[in-house]
């Protein structure tokens, strides 16, 4: 890392996230101006983006090479009151909370109080949404049966493909004009709608050109007064780059990166879509520019690396849009899930790993930034040296890159009906979500709390936390004579709540399509321009909607426990179990220990437990998969929690797996914390019993100590572990190389860390089995390894 990058990186790390009122002010001015009433919604939205980019304050930091910020400076964060309004109380919480604060200065609060809140109250999409969904939806939502992604954020889950490297915004405008010419007003009932969408897109394309030109002029002005000769030259280069892109297709490496960055600003300024929007297969997109630069002598490995590092810092400058209401208190991350892909396969299915792949991996390791996150797509066709390189970064213990199975991802998409070439151009984004980059809108609609549904079943349709009947009356569990009767009741409740969720989703989808179309995003994702259809209304070639199942490990262990002890051994009666749950196991420690330690549990390659998971998977899958959304696509499942397993656990009382009330659920498809005691191969075998190919992503987390990966043999075994999981069609695996802090916690709460393996001087064993003195020694060494 050279001096410039060090400086920019430090600035980014040191900058305190704060709220910027600029976007909210410009938005409000524009809506007050009366322009909006004169135009259709899509045209108004396109024109709004133009207004913002015409008027926003530009930021060009000292020593920067890639330019442009969403707010006024690094870590300055805009808000989106047309979607959700931050109340004065929200601003106070954001400003003062201990963890992950966003500073809200007094003058910003004043603007909110005087202008933003009064104007947008009654107009925001969130308010409308909460009045349109029905009472059942509200009850289930409040009980914590599911969450709703689109209640505060735009349905943006998508990733850019390769087309922006071939076409500038001017080319898109030409495409739009061609599409308008082809509109058939005689036969197509939607011709007018399409024309309005296309007009909106045209404004949006022009908006980005304006931003580029303004930056070009700004850089030129700065160059004119710059005394440092080198910096003057750099500013002139920046001016040239921004004059060319985004209006025209990029012609070199620098322009390609800058163009993407402008596009990123366009997407995330238009709406508060997740920053999961990202350049996707970056090594594939950049390789031609890199090669050309080397051939022409205009680029070196070092200069390309520097530009990439400058690009990386740009992502880190963008904290996630802050939440409102209850979620403002709960949300505990600045990360916005941008996940850059490297590796995988080419259009023809051959190995796509190239020189750029390794340069990007070097950048990831050296930058060590929270954002952007990164992942390696590993196909059976990719070489081991690629996986080993990734393993070396994993070993450094900052959780990146995560590892994905390209061959599984492609099969997942093909099963959903995606063309195989489109599938090969895809990958994973966000946490682990499968998608065809550049052609698919794959919207996550909300997490689904499977163990909560189980708890409601145990209480005959009631939520024991509130006493409110929100499910259906499936019978008193003491009346169930067989395990199958109990399971049937659970399945009925599951279908009931999935129905509520999907009905709500279909309302919410239409609200977004009609109230807040995304003309800028529509430029980027095929075939929105060709069909004159907005991204939020189904304009993408593929439109998948996801419901993300959470707590699979917990529910598996619950079912296994009930089946084993109540129905097979008959050693615990249902009434005794229910009484113990009600009292959170107080006074029933022996019973709890039996549940915890004498139950076959998920994560140990034990079919007695894992068969329950297979059954739950089938139930969840058939409840969701293939049902239509309003965008011409279908509902699909994936199994990932982000951090929702913590919230979901907080709304559930004690459960039959021995889990106490309020404790987090199992995370992703990982076993319940501490339930797996047979090492990583057993976890992987258990996890592979899920049919990953019928999901759109699963998340498996593995804990390792740095010592396990200390030598080449350890790294090789990690590669073998990954390859084996992927042979079994596993979708994703990430390695949590644990630090000393985790080991300390393992000392305090050993029962939660029974699966933690440590390497000690050539031997390995479970950490909690070690003598206190040896634990200290390992911790000490771990701390050294962390340095």
């Amino acid at each position, binding site marked *: 890392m050279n001096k410039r990058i060090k400086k920019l990186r430090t600035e980014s790390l040191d900058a305190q996230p704060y709220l910027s009122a600029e976007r909210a002010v410009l938005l409000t001015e524009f809506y007050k101006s009366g322009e909006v009433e004169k135009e259709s919604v899509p045209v108004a939205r396109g024109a709004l983006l133009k207004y913002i980019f015409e008027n926003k304050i530009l930021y060009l930091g000292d020593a920067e090479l890639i330019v442009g910020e969403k707010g006024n400076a690094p870590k300055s964060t805009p808000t989106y009151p047309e979607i959700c309004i931050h109340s004065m109380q929200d601003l106070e919480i954001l400003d003062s909370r201990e963890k992950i604060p966003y500073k809200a200065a007094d003058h910003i609060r004043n603007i909110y109080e005087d202008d933003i809140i009064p104007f947008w109250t009654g107009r925001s999409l969130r308010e409308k949404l909460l009045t349109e969904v029905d009472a059942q939806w509200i009850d289930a939502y409040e009980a914590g049966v599911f969450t709703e992604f689109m209640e505060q954020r735009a349905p943006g889950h998508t990733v850019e493909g390769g087309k922006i490297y071939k076409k500038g915004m001017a080319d898109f405008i030409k495409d739009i004009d061609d599409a308008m010419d082809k509109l058939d007003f005689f036969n197509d009932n939607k011709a007018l709608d399409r024309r309005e969408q296309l007009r909106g897109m045209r404004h949006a394309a022009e908006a980005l050109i304006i931003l580029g030109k303004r930056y070009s002029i700004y850089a030129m002005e700065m160059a004119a007064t710059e005394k440092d000769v080198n910096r003057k030259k750099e500013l002139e280069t920046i001016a040239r780059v921004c004059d060319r892109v985004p209006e025209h297709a990029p012609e070199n490496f620098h322009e390609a990166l800058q163009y993407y960055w402008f596009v990123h600003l366009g997407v995330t300024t238009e709406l508060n879509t997740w920053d999961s929007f990202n350049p996707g297969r970056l090594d594939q997109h950049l390789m031609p520019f890199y090669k050309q630069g080397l051939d022409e002598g205009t680029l070196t490995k070092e200069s390309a690396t520097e530009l990439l590092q400058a690009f990386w810092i740009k992502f880190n400058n963008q904290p996630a849009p802050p939440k409102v209401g209850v979620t403002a208190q709960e949300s505990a991350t600045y990360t916005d899930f941008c996940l850059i892909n490297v590796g995988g396969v080419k259009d023809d299915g051959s190995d796509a790993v190239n020189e750029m792949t390794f340069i990007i991996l070097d950048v990831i390791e050296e930058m060590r930034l929270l954002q952007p996150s990164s992942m390696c797509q590993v196909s059976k066709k990719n070489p081991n040296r690629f996986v080993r390189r990734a393993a070396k970064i994993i070993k450094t213990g900052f959780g990146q890159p995560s590892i994905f199975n390209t061959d599984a991802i492609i099969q997942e998409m093909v099963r959903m009906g995606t063309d195989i070439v489109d599938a090969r151009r895809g990958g994973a984004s966000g946490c682990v979500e499968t998608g065809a980059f550049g052609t698919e809108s794959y919207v996550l609609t909300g997490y689904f709390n499977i163990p909560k549904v189980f708890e409601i079943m145990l209480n005959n349709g009631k939520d024991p936390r509130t006493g409110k009947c929100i499910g259906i009356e499936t019978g008193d569990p003491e009346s169930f004579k067989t395990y199958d009767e109990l399971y049937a009741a659970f399945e009925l409740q599951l279908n009931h709540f999935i129905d509520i969720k999907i009905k709500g989703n279909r309302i919410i989808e239409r609200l977004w399509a009609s109230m807040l179309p995304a003309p800028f995003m529509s430029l980027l994702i095929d075939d929105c321009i060709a069909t004159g259809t907005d991204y939020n209304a189904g304009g993408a070639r593929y439109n998948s909607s996801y419901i993300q199942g959470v707590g699979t490990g917990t529910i598996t262990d619950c079912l296994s426990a009930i089946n084993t002890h109540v129905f097979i051994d008959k050693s615990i009666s249902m009434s005794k179990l229910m009484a113990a749950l009600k009292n959170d196991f107080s006074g029933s420690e022996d019973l709890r220990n039996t549940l915890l330690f004498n139950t076959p549990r998920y994560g140990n390659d034990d079919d007695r437990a894992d068969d329950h998971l297979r059954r739950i998977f089938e139930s969840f899958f058939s409840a969701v998969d293939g049902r239509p959304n309003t965008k011409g696509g279908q509902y699909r499942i994936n199994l990932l929690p982000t951090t929702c397993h913590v919230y979901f656990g907080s709304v559930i009382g004690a459960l039959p797996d021995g889990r106490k009330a309020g404790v987090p659920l199992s995370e992703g498809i990982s076993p319940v914390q501490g339930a797996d*005691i047979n*090492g990583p191969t057993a976890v992987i075998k258990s996890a592979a019993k899920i049919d990953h190919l019928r999901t759109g992503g699963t998340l498996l987390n593995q804990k390792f100590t740095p010592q396990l990966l200390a030598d080449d043999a350890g790294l090789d*075994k990690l590669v073998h*572990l990954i390859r*084996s999981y992927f*042979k079994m069609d596993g979708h994703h695996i990430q390695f949590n190389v644990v630090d000393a802090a985790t080991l300390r916690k393992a000392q305090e709460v050993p029962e939660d860390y029974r699966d933690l393996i440590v390497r000690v001087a050539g031997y390995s064993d479970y950490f909690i089995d070690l003598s206190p003195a*040896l634990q200290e020694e390992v911790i000490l060494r771990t701390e050294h390894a962390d340095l």
Partner: protein
Amino acid sequence: MLCLPAVYYLSTMTKSDSTSSLTDAGQGVIFSIKKYSMHDGPGIRTTVFLKGCPLNCWWCHNPESKKLAPEPVKQGANRPFSGFAGSDGKVGRIMTVDEVIAEVKKDEIFYDESGGGVTFSGGEPLMQPDFLVALLHAAKRYDFHTAVDTSGFASAEVFECILPLTDLFLYDLKLMDDDAHRKYAGTPVAPVLDNLAWLARSGANVIVRIPIVPGITDTPENLDSIIRFLLERSVLRNVSILALNHLGDQKYIRLGMENKLGTLKVPSQERMAELQERFIRKGLHCTIGG
């Protein structure tokens, strides 16, 4: 099967154990099966630990492996004993060959991918000879790479039986001096050396493993004597040195057994590297750890 009956073997080697009915060609006593075992041979392996050992090494970190029969262990709160300590509160479990192999077979895909396999360790696995032979035969039916981790203290006949079924021997060599071996390991050293020499002559694939216990096994006399033995009496050139560890300390407490080296300091990484160099200088291939 060619082997001598276990009852004969046991009566000659460990008179104190009168539990011969526990182990035969169909079943035996196992105290742990560890997966993702990384230091007991090549690739990703499953190590099957057979219970019972004729030796009594002061530095043993698996004290639960000494007695053949399953034995009671104090249960720590929420801390299951490593390996099997079922609801009966005992460490060690009688398992059939089929049960063991079913468990080993679960990780077949990892062996294929990594060139791994199964390792039979102990205790002293050769102390349950018929069971071990049956396990090796069964493992070979699945083409698994097999390793046997042995103290070498067993009858020559047993080694003859397992040689054709064993791809790799991990062979412990601790002390060359007979008095020292009797004192710290509890048995004469002669059978250990004779069996090792025989394996070498027979073309077995062997890695000699030397525990480094400060002041006991790491004396220049002992190490030079080991080196001389290997160079002069064998064609074996692969050595692995293993540092003393205190992994077993907790187990001694929970088994109510005396831990003679509980406070002995473990050798430093520098010390291990220095010892490694000593072997390499003499023309041996030496690694630290498994």
